[in-house]
């Protein structure tokens, strides 16, 4: 049985053609990039996530990919997931329509059986959307950095050919944040936690609307632990976990303060 011609190729009116052409539009490219990062991170292995982020960064010179790569190296396990969450937040905040970040790797709906899944009776994804509160001190509320300017962004042009709007803020802002956090991380790696804390203070002062406030907080907690200031580390960790219990960094934060309490 032969398929009938599609409406766009046959009997559609001009009005219907305009509608159907609009419906063939593509998704925003940035959303696709976020999904790639989140999906590769969801494979569940740090090495895999790092590889994916590295590949993405190599493919693009944009601040977006630069951020993925750097966040992985700065924070480690779960960072790519966190970065994906940050990007979601950045995109949403730009529109002003949503005030909280969205984390996309949590527990989940149970899906029904699929004939296309080998050796299973159902799909039990571990990913779902969970809203979490805003990042904790020392950073101010997170502001958008990259991502589309609006949560209501329409898909790529199908009729007018107009390009997608530019990112909400310049990649240089993100690069500046990355540079500062890299410096703090390097100081920590060099056994200079006091210097790392000083650099994090400077970071907080320089970036009152930091995009990577959560990452900075995790590094700060580690620096406090290494500096021997366990009470401060525990207070900050408790504050972080209270405000972001579903954060992808939560496990790492717990391990940091747990390790400091033998």
């Amino acid at each position, binding site marked *: 049985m032969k398929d009938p011609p599609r409406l766009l190729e046959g009997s559609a009116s001009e009005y219907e053609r305009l509608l159907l052409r609009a419906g063939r539009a593509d998704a925003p490219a940035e959303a696709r990039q976020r999904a790639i990062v989140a999906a590769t991170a969801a494979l569940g292995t740090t090495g895999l996530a790092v590889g994916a982020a590295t590949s993405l960064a190599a493919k693009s010179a944009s601040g977006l990919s630069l951020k993925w790569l750097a966040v992985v190296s700065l924070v480690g396990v779960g960072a790519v997931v966190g970065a994906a969450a940050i990007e979601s937040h950045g995109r949403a905040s730009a529109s002003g329509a949503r005030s909280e970040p969205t984390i996309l790797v949590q527990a*989940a*709906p149970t899906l029904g059986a699929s004939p296309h899944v080998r050796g299973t009776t159902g799909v039990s994804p571990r990913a779902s959307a969970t809203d979490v509160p805003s990042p904790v001190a020392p950073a101010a509320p997170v502001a958008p950095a990259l991502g589309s300017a609006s949560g209501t962004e*329409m898909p790529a042009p199908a009729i007018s050919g107009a390009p997608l709007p530019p990112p909400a803020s310049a990649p240089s802002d993100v690069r500046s944040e990355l540079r500062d956090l890299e410096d703090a991380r390097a100081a920590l790696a060099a056994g200079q936690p006091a210097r790392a804390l000083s650099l994090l203070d400077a970071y907080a002062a320089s970036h009152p609307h930091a995009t990577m406030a959560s990452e900075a907080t995790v590094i700060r907690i580690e620096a406090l632990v290494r500096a021997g200031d366990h009470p401060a580390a525990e207070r900050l960790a408790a504050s972080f976990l209270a405000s972001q219990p579903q954060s992808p960094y939560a496990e790492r934060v717990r391990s940091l303060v747990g390790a400091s309490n033998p």
Partner: protein
Amino acid sequence: MTRTECNAADMPSLARERASMPVDRVRGVVEAQYDFVWRTLRTLGLGGADAEDAAQQVMCVLARRIDDVEAGAERAFLFSTATHVASTWRRTARRHPEDASDDLDTRSAPAPSVEDLLDRRRAYEVLERVLQAMPVELRIVFVLYELEEMTTPAIAEVIGVPVGTIASRLRRARESFQAIVKRMQAVQRGRKEQP
């Protein structure tokens, strides 16, 4: 030394090669199928930001199940997952102000003019209104055939119903689509004729 460097240095080359395989497959599937998933979710009634977040969620499910998904069956898996995610999402997620397009009443909403539709956003908004006014089982077949340009056998495989059922639904879906559009245009004409 950064953690990236640690990973690169510590992971045995053989393990690294093996590990890269699912990453490459996942990345390839997401790149190739993201638009399909996103459009499917929009068809199922999720607004712009929700569709993006839900599409990301669908891709995370794919990643976690990648070893169980047969090569060539990725699209069917993604469609099945997207329908479940959309269902859960609409039940549990808070609605955002920008996601209210499906609340519009197409019976009384006039159709914009052809000139208006040359604005792609306006055209997309109208299309969404029309699609949301269609019964969901017809809407899905309509979108997969007319917008995704899938064949009826492929749609039958994805949805899991006989090809004859797909052909029947497609016929009814087209009738529904064109009836809704005509109704909207009639409302527009009626309003123009009013003094």
